[in-house]
């Protein structure tokens, strides 16, 4: 990459007690690039995602977002976090707030937008993800797929530089998976930088610029989706694909 990468993970290690979950991870994600993290369960995909906006601390190494090192604590960290959107497996909408208030909370309290500005922008985003008609409902009144699309809108409302998705469709009923994936595909087409953990191989083929394969806390290989799916280099990736694709 000629241009400096938007996300740079350099020599990151992390332990949970004796368990070495991330082993000397080096990863660069360019602006507008869509990275799919694949790997068996327990390989450290979620942990890697969560270290990128410091929901998890790291033992050593460093992580840079748009050239700035992620600070350890405090206001600076909160500011940088706002630039990194995150979508969780379990949606995590604020249960006591309406859909609209879920989306406007960050822009109002972090970015300092007025209520009316924040609401106007939020309505546009809700429209974009197709849930604008639900704006005044509570999260519990929406289907899982709708909730996840609201969660995406909530993250986008901060105008993040990069979006992290940790198995965004794993908690959904099958008939709702596509509506969320469609939203993600259109985001990718608009040029959003994305790091996505998913088991949706169709989506990975369609949307990924690069597949990053993890096993036991290590990056085993990275390649284009075509190459990864048709001609995986490592034994572990072949093994993993064999298990996933034969189901």
């Amino acid at each position: 990459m000629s241009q400096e990468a938007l996300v740079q993970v350099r020599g990151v290690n992390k332990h949970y007690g004796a368990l070495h979950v991330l082993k000397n991870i080096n990863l660069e994600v360019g602006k507008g690039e869509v990275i799919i993290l694949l790997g068996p369960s327990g390989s450290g995909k979620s942990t890697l995602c969560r270290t990128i906006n410091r929901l998890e601390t790291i033992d050593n190494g460093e992580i840079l977002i748009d050239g700035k090192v992620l600070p350890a604590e405090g206001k600076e960290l909160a500011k940088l976090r706002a630039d990194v959107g995150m979508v969780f497996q379990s949606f995590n909408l604020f249960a006591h707030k309406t859909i609209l208030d879920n989306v406007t909370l960050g822009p109002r309290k972090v970015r300092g937008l007025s209520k009316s500005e924040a609401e106007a922008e939020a309505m546009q985003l809700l429209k974009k993800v197709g849930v604008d008609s639900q704006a005044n409902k509570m999260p519990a009144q929406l289907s899982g797929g709708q909730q996840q699309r609201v969660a995406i809108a909530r993250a986008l409302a901060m105008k993040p530089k990069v979006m992290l998705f940790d198995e965004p469709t794993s908690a959904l009923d099958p008939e709702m998976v596509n509506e969320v994936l469609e939203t993600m595909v259109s985001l990718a087409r608009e040029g959003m930088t994305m790091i996505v953990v998913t088991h949706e191989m169709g989506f990975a083929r369609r949307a990924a610029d690069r597949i990053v394969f993890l096993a036991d806390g290590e990056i085993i290989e990275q390649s284009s989706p075509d190459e990864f799916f048709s001609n995986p280099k490592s034994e572990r990736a072949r093994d993993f694909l064999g298990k996933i694709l034969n189901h």
Partner: protein
Amino acid sequence: MSFSEQLSTLFAKYNVIDAFWTNVQLTFWAAIGAFVLGSILALMRISPVPSLRAAGTAYVHLVRNTPLTILMTLAILGVWTQFQLSLSSNFETNFFLYAIIVLAIYHAAFVCEAIRSGVNTVPTGQAEAARAIGLGFMPTARYVIFPQALRGSITPLGNTLIALAKNTTVATVASVAEASGMMKSMIEFNSDLVFMIFFVFAMGFVVIVVPIGLLTTWASRKLAVKR
């Protein structure tokens, strides 16, 4: 003497309503103090700063495991008698304020734990989502955690308030003229009416406490968060 004669004898000689009014006032002010202090303690106990967490935990364990009577005695015999720390030039007001402060300090530990049990009802994912959109610890607590935690805390907070209302009788240790002190002197001088006296004071506390229970039950139903 008939039931009503007994009653009117007692009410003629003693200002029972005034005595109970003192307990109501003690309850009210101590509840406010305990709520404020307890909320701060709860914030400390869930904060990311280890020393604040440790201080909050130490407070709760120390205060919760000390009998209230001992705290009240310590305040009066220790702080008041030894250091002559006067909170008001009026002797009665001074002790009244002492009693409120001790009651607040003591019940704050229970308020803290009530709020914390409410915090535990809020899925951690919501706190993570709040942090992920760039909210710091205090805004996350204020806009996301506490509004939901309070709803989950209403029942234990109500129980704490009921305990507080009854524990105001310990203010008698601080020479505050409240209901239980009056009951004691009534029995001393009217030992033939002891059951009647007991009945009057038991009913008095029922009148104070039952509405608190009803109110909290109603509030916790009304405010329950749908998930």
